[in-house]
């Protein structure tokens, strides 16, 4: 039996009842008095000069309150590399470039006004292929850099170079070598709630931004900096999260529409809401970063990996958001998935006139793991070793220091591999080439925070009121993962209360302490560690209060009894049982002496003590509040891109059985087993929910989803043409939760938000190879691609 009362239980999400009754307020539902609606005019070209903009007709439209162009607002650069402005004044470099914006009394009027804005463009030569864009004579996407210096190439000044050991030596030590070219494409995060925000200034230029951001504090800082740069020194900014309709990476960067809302609100002195349509969500939101990989790896006669060499080219699009930083995560599977002594990884990010990219569940990990794990199967074939065996031979082990200097603590990867192997009946089913096939892939991912900023901290405040209700001011955000439920379980456990006593307030920079953001699968790990520390403090205060006031409370009760009942015999109580905080404990929100938990007088509801402690009457009254700021003992990557950037790492393996229709090329998934190392599951039903959702998204990534760009324009900006899975696309996902409590995790937990997606696509690709003998290394693996590959193979054979 577990030693815990609440963590590890599948507590239902009752704390989020508003979500099933229609009462939860998302950004789409938020109204502020006098609110206006903002809309954005995007570019009509992938690359063009803006010759002129005439807004006069739009301004005259009834209901229009402001029309802004790049000429109306200070030209301040924003973004990770400060390579764009909020409204583009002279040049547009992608179809989603924001050229003008309108605020009006209704979204319809704002939309109509956009149609009245006349923009004159002069088209410029554009480049859409990152390899073309690297050539010397390619059209330049940017003429100058952030500091105004002329730019000579489309290659970003952001080289990602990692090397460990000696590749040439590794090559010499190899008995077998495999080389593959692998490609992944753009996919849209497809949050069901579209992007949006409300910006509102008071008359002192203080801004409240209702934003869906996952990084309220970093987001706030970006806005503070922006306001400072446009001349509003000293403006205060408060960022408040409404209920968020999904994120999957989209809410890590502060998007341009948020700056535009700020500008419109400033101009009109009214609250302004911008809410994307679905079409905008497809066209104007940065998708997952695509990548082109060349991967080569080798092993010796026994199958031990000797080296791994990866070259990657990333189509950055026209500006730089988090997409360009995905190599920092790609590096993790490339250097540290399985034990490989000699590693080299170079990534080149290239500007093109395509839309720019950002984060999506797994960051760069799904892309890189697709490369590593497809190549593992190629290598297994070269070496004549069973692919599962090759993985087991090179399996990561606890206590290992990887070439990237990641310190592996707990690591049940071999258990994950063996579990799915057994479940899918590996030995029996593999290698038949009869249209049915099986394949597997594993993953490593950060599971104990990710130090991408100098602080990876997370703050929490735990207040206990006189009724014994607990208010938690939690600095993270919830985009649907269920943090309120899990945090209420962890707080209840640590404090000795019940989950239903706990309320959670999330994502408000005015109320909560600082946090680096809810990303990198870090929320449970961080919030849990912070909660344990804050609850320790609060609990200590309650116990001290108890030592102080319990004797009086008991005596008062006894006297009352005596008064009411003349026969009552005053008991002879041993007050030393409650004379020190250490002698007391709290469970289920009852305080009791540790030595006699069922004591008839000393066991009491915690609210009795809290009420008494708050109303002392002598100037000694107290409230209970514990706060903690947890910053894990991790390292930033150093100049060589090495460092232990997470406290712990999660592993997992997915095995898939597919059936491929040779006539249509269609791939059907017959079985999908996903074994995941979660440390300890805080809430098994919620953990499974993460695995199901991520696996489905991974199947979409593997087989159906693709944002189609033609000359920089998104050609399928709707759910008819962008193929997300529906309930009818049955994928029989079986989550297998592998528990091996991690010493650094709160109650042993590791993060599990992203891992489920990561190995799915390569497991499918490997299964397809097993089924029909063709290796497709270009995502998504559509029926057409399967047919083409089959035809090509038939041609080669005849």
């Amino acid at each position, binding site marked *: 039996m577990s030693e815990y009362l609440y963590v590890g239980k599948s507590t239902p999400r009752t704390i989020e009842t508003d979500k099933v*009754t*229609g009462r939860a307020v998302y950004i789409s539902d938020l109204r502020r008095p006098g609110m206006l609606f903002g809309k954005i005019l995007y570019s009509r070209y992938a690359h063009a000069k803006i010759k002129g903009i005439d807004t006069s007709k739009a301004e005259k439209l009834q209901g229009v309150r402001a029309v802004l162009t790049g000429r109306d607002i200070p030209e301040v650069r924003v973004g990770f590399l400060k390579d764009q402005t909020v409204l583009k004044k002279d040049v547009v470099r992608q179809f989603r470039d924001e050229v003008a914006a309108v605020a009006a009394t209704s979204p319809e009027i704002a939309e109509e006004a956009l149609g009245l804005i006349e923009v004159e463009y002069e088209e410029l030569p554009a480049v859409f292929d990152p390899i073309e864009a690297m050539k010397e004579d390619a059209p330049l996407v940017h003429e100058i850099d952030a500091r105004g210096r002329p730019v000579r190439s489309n290659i970003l000044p952001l080289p990602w170079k990692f090397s460990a050991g000696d590749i040439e030596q590794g090559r010499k030590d190899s008995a077998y070598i495999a080389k593959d070219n692998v490609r992944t494409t753009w996919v849209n995060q497809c949050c069901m709630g579209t992007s949006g925000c409300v910006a509102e200034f008071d008359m002192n230029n203080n801004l409240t931004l209702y934003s869906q951001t996952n990084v309220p504090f970093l987001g706030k800082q970006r806005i503070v900096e922006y306001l400072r740069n446009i001349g509003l020194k000293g403006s205060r900014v408060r960022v408040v999260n409404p*209920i968020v309709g999904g994120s999957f990476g989209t809410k890590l960067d502060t998007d341009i529409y948020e700056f535009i809302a700020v500008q419109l609100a400033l101009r009109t002195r009214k609250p302004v809401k911008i809410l994307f349509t*679905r079409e905008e969500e497809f066209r104007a939101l940065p998708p997952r970063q695509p990548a082109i990989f060349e991967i080569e790896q080798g092993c010796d006669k026994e199958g031990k990996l000797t080296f791994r060499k990866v070259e990657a080219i990333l189509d950055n699009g026209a500006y730089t958001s988090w997409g360009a930083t995905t190599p920092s995560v790609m590096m993790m599977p490339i250097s540290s998935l399985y034990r490989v002594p000699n590693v080299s990884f170079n990534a080149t990010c290239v500007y093109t006139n395509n839309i720019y990219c950002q984060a999506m569940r797994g960051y760069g990990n799904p892309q890189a793991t697709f490369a590593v794990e497809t190549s593992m199967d190629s290598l297994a074939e070269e070496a004549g070793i069973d692919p599962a065996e090759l993985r087991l031979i090179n399996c990561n082990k606890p206590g290992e220091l990887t070439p990237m200097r990641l310190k592996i603590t707990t690591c049940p990867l071999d258990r994950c591999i063996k579990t799915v192997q057994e479940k899918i009946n590996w030995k029996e089913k593999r290698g038949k080439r009869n249209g049915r096939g099986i394949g597997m892939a594993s993953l490593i991912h950060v599971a104990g925070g990710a130090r991408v900023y100098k602080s990876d901290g997370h703050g929490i405040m735990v207040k206990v009121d006189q009724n014994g209700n607990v208010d938690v001011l939690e600095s993270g955000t919830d985009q649907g993962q269920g943090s309120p439920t899990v945090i209420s379980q962890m707080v209840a456990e640590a404090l000795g209360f019940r989950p239903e006593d706990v309320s959670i307030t999330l994502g408000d920079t005015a109320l909560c302490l600082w946090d680096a953001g809810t990303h990198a699968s870090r929320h449970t790990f961080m919030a849990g560690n912070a909660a344990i520390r804050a609850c320790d403090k609060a609990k200590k205060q309650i116990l001290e209060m108890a030592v102080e006031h319990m004797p009086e409370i008991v005596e008062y009760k006894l006297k009352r009894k005596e008064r009411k009942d003349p026969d009552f015999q005053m008991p002879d109580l041993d007050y030393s049982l409650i004379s020190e905080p250490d002698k007391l404990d709290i469970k289920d929100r009852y305080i009791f002496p540790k030595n006699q938990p069922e004591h008839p007088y000393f066991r009491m509801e915690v609210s009795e003590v809290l009420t008494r402690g708050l109303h002392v009457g002598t100037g000694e009254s107290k409230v209970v509040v514990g706060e903690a700021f947890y910053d894990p003992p991790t390292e930033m990557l150093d100049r060589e891109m090495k460092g232990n950037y997470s406290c712990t790492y999660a592993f997992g393996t997915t095995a898939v059985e597919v059936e491929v229709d040779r006539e249509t090329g269609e791939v059907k998934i017959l079985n999908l087993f996903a074994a995941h190392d979660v440390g300890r599951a805080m809430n098994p039903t919620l953990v499974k929910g993460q695995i199901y959702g991520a696996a489905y998204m991974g199947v979409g990534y593997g087989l159906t989803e693709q944002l189609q760009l033609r000359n920089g324009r998104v050609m399928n900006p709707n759910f008819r043409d962008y193929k997300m899975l529906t*309930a009818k696309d049955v994928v029989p996902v079986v989550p297998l939760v592998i528990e091996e409590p991690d010493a650094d995790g709160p109650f042993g937990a590791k993060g599990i938000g992203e891992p489920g997606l990561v190995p799915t696509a390569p497991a499918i690709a490997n299964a397809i190879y097993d089924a029909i003998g063709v290796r497709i290394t270009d995502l998504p693996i559509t029926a057409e691609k399967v047919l083409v590959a089959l035809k090509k193979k038939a041609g080669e054979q005849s």
Partner: protein
Amino acid sequence: MEKVSVSFTLNGEPVTIEVPTTWNLLKVLRECFELNGAKEGCGVGECGCCTVIVDGDAVNSCIYPIPEIEGRSVLSVEGISGTDGGLHPLQKAFLENNAVQCGFCTSGMIMSAKALLDKNPEPTEDEIRTGISGNFCRCTGYVQIVEAIEMAAKNKEGNF
């Protein structure tokens, strides 16, 4: 702007409104009645986030022309809990089974499920999946939603 006056039943109550003829049912629910449960996920009939029940059928309210609502009976997620404020068995099952993550699809999902169970109280898994095939969910992979609907079907007392 040309306006139309329509009368219909909304969550059991007779109502009359006058709105531009171009408005759809979703806009009416959200703007005239501040019923925010039905969501706009696409606005063109492709995602199901706006699902409500009209005369027993689940419909995409975002493409339901307002003049056609005259005389009909509309049920939105706000109208399915008991009058005592208690939750509907589907709402309970969704919470219990983690069929709600971000929750943006949830109102629509629950209404599609209700329309299904009202007609077919003991659906097979396949029938459930067909019943909600017009409702996208990005978070859950549908598995726990299907399970929740099965759970509600089993636990129901009397009619939905």
